[in-house]
């Protein structure tokens, strides 16, 4: 990309496109997350559907300019329903060489690469591992490269505000944002308003950022940009009317926990120990004290789980959350919850393992741990979150099941969903059916393991209730009296009834529906959790191309929906796509003896739509 042509490009010439994928990538200190969230907000306000994904470095303060210090934010926005944050990038904004080298592979052939040439210094090039500048040789010939000295232009744009060079450079992200706003014909007002409010106490910082934003925009407008780059128009999407906000998985789960506890008429005691990516939940709930939420940062995950259980014993809703390694530590306490039949919700934000694994990378590899990972026969319901906004309903459902059946329930979400965001049609809480908990207060014929005939749940008694003093614990309890019992026949009976209680939940959850397509046919792609978006888009695309393929997506992992076996057996082939080495596949095969095959990957990244399409094609064309 050589000459910069100075021509006038009025708005009418914008090329209309259905959707676009843009990634802002830079150093951790470059403010890429903020830039991305601004672009997201504006896209949402302008009526696009969208999906975003932030990619943070694992290190807190990685040295500037290094590849492991790169922070990126990706947004896919469109005039149609957007299911994923996008396979390939239409535009990569690279604020330094490290950002370029780590993200270039995701740019589609012929895609646009906008680089801050001012940051391609020898020092930065060396840190990123370049021996010569990729902006100056032919290595980027397959892309439409735009090199702009954003650093210099930003410093110039803000110099009137009397900031130091270093301070001025901080507005570089806003300069880039202004340019991309211009490319897609976006209004700057929402960002300007935000900056004014955010920096109300530091007006010179607000002004500098606004000046940089305007300068980036003007740079495009005044036609200093290469003509062949083009400008684009992404129309409004057909979206259900209503009031929207963007929501991440962490936000939806925390709001859902609060909503669910209110529907149950309970206070929450949320007990947790920090771990990536689960900490976000603790942070969210810690700010909900005005709703009576108790949060407790325990000394470890064992204490977190046991304190949550103690809270449930005392009559509030005990909730604990962690990711894989922490969930492993909680398991003995979860076993106690199963044995004593107390309600409790465990949120597992899965990440890549084993052990510390890749703490900031997503995976769905805790299904075995959730369904099977305890000593002895210890069944427990497991439900999963499919999209960033889905956490709201899933958390409510977890609380409904936990309190109705007096059982711990594990919610499986993952690092991708926790951090990704999407627009959310804000629900009306009053439209949700209440499921108020009725604590037992009647001493007549009471014992703590008396069961409800239908649900098989035992009564929940709040300590403090007159005449109902009783003792419970981990030692096996007599079916008939609730006292401790070492009788082997009683143990058989109690093991059976615990299993029957959990299996019975299958009658109280919706039958499995076919997400896209219909029962019967050549191929069903089965998924659970965060693979929802890519599978949905891939199956839609393949059906449009005439392939006989359907999507089945599970929320309920345990117990499985009653009709699932029958449904799966209507297809010639079943393909289970999951980000692990085949855990749901094993479960389905062992439960139903269906010849399910797997499409599996664990490279820390969500499925690409293209990968799924290839797999579908391979199975239907063989």
């Amino acid at each position, binding site marked *: 990309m050589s000459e910069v042509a100075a021509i006038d490009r009025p708005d009418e010439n914008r090329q209309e496109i259905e959707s676009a994928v843009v990634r802002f990538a830079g150093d951790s200190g470059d403010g890429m997350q903020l830039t991305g969230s601004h672009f997201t907000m504006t896209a949402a306000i302008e009526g696009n559907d969208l999906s975003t994904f932030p990619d943070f470095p694992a290190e807190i303060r990685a040295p500037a300019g290094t590849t492991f210090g790169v922070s990126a934010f990706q947004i896919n926005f469109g005039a149609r329903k957007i299911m994923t944050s996008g396979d390939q990038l239409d535009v990569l904004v690279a604020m330094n060489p490290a950002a370029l080298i780590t993200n270039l592979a995701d740019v589609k052939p012929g895609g646009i690469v906008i680089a801050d040439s001012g940051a391609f210094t020898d020092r930065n090039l060396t840190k990123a591992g370049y021996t010569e500048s990729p902006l100056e040789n032919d290595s980027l010939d397959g892309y439409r490269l735009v090199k702009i000295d954003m650093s210099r232009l930003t410093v110039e744009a803000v110099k009137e505000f009397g900031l130091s060079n270093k301070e001025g450079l901080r507005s570089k992200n806003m300069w880039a944002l202004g340019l991309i706003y211009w490319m897609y014909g976006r209004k700057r007002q929402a960002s300007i308003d935000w900056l004014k409010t955010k920096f109300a106490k530091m007006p010179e910082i607000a002004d500098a950022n606004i000046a940089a934003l305007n300068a980036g925009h003007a740079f495009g407008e005044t036609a200093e940009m290469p003509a062949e780059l083009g400008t684009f128009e992404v129309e409004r999407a057909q979206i259900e009317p209503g009031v929207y906000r963007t929501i991440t998985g962490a936000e939806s789960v925390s709001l859902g926990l609060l909503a669910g506890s209110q529907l149950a008429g309970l206070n929450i005691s949320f007990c947790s120990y920090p771990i990536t990516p689960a900490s976000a939940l603790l942070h969210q709930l810690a700010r909900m004290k005005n709703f009576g939420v108790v949060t407790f940062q*325990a000394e470890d995950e064992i204490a977190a789980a046991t304190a949550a259980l103690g*809270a449930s014993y005392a009559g509030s809703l005990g909730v604990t959350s962690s990711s894989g390694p922490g969930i492993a530590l909680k398991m003995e306490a979860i076993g106690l919850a199963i044995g004593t039949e107390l309600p409790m919700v465990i949120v597992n934000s899965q990440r890549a393992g084993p052990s510390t694994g890749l703490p900031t990378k997503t995976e769905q590899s805790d299904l075995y741990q959730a369904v099977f990972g305890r000593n002895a026969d210890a069944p427990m319901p497991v439900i999963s979150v499919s999209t960033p906004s889905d956490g709201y309903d899933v958390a409510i459902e977890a609380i409904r099941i936990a309190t109705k059946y007096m059982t711990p329930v594990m919610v499986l979400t993952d690092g991708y969903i926790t951090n990704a965001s999407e627009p959310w049609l*804000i629900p009306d809480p009053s439209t949700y059916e209440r499921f108020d908990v009725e604590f037992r207060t009647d001493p007549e014929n009471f014992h703590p393991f008396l069961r409800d005939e239908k649900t098989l749940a035992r009564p929940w008694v709040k*300590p*403090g*209730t007159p005449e109902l*003093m009783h003792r419970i614990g981990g030692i096996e309890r007599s079916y008939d009296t609730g006292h401790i019992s070492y009788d082997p026949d009683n143990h058989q009976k109690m093991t059976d009834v615990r299993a029957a209680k959990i299996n019975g939940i299958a009658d109280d959850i919706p039958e499995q529906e076919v997400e896209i397509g219909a029962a019967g046919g050549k191929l069903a792609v089965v998924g659970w959790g965060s693979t929802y978006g890519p599978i949905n888009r891939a199956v839609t695309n393949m059906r449009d191309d005439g392939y006989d393929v359907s999507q089945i997506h599970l929320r309920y992992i345990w117990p499985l929906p009653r009709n699932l076996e029958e449904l799966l057996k209507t297809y010639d082939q079943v393909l289970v796509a999951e980000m692990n080495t085949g855990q749901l596949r094993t479960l389905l095969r062992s439960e139903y003896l269906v010849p399910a095959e797997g499409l599996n990957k664990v490279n820390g990244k969500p499925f690409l739509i293209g990968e799924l399409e290839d797999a579908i094609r391979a199975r239907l064309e063989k």
Partner: protein
Amino acid sequence: MNVQSPPEKLTARDFATDQEVRWCPGCGDYAILKAVQNTLAQLEADPKSTVFVSGIGCAARFPYYMETYGFHTIHGRSPAVATGVKLSNPELDVWVVGGDGDMLSIGGNHTMHAIRRNIDLQILLFNNQIYGLTKGQYSPTSKIGTRSPSTPMGSIDNPVSAAQFALGVGGTFIARSSDILQKHLPEVLKRAHGHRGTSFVEIFQNCIVYNDGAFKHFTEKSVQDEMQIHVEHGQPLLFGKDKSKGLVLNTSEMRLEAVTLGENGITEADIAVHDETNRSLATMLAQMDPPTMPVALGVLYCESAPTYDASVHAQIEHARKDGEGDFTKLLHGGQTWTVE
């Protein structure tokens, strides 16, 4: 919370359940159970608002024998479970019971954090210096050289002092007593109950089967006067038959010394006076060991400090000072937009 008071005064027996007590005959746990039941009767405790939480071990069977609410949990975790109980309902009177293995080995971490947070619990540690339930392995309080199935040639690691541990992590109430002191123990338990915050009580308990006589060097009749000092706030630190001995503070060496009144010109005026608000003194008392020094029993340390549970709920109240949160407003938090 229901404020019905029980119709008539309860006796110790009213705090006993109908469950067969399953400790070995002669186990010190029986005496402690009796003392706790007596204490609750004397305190006119309300059984429906009283909760006993325990971990696993012989000692941890305790809740099954108390006619109150009770939760027998998992090994080592009782302080954490109890923390959840108390945070969830601060009006409950929560007692935690466990052995030396339960609370200082597998659960040492939770014991430390409960104590340092000063959550309002009574923690009763039954120290028999052995793992009773698992058939007699040495424990973290066993003396060096303890022969047990896992240490046939004698244990080689240093034992931990429960009271010093509790003082070291910032405990606000640390006391000691013994299973056989049926008058002393209920008095200590009453003080523990009266204290707001974590009351940590180490109770020396004889395991007749696996560690019989572990404490006899200071509990046997023949030596008890010389080898025990019962400390009381504001009282001189006297012990021995006829209170003829006492402790003086050697200020140049910063340690306590045992002396005999009348010897070397010592008078009662030289004897140190117990100040239970003095952590250094409490630490020195907790360090004393026979045969050179008596074992200090009673309330070694007590200070008043904010409790964790009260502070947690004060923050919640503060957050609600302008009224309960508005959930709809929370749902609409951040930037929203309307699609027509």
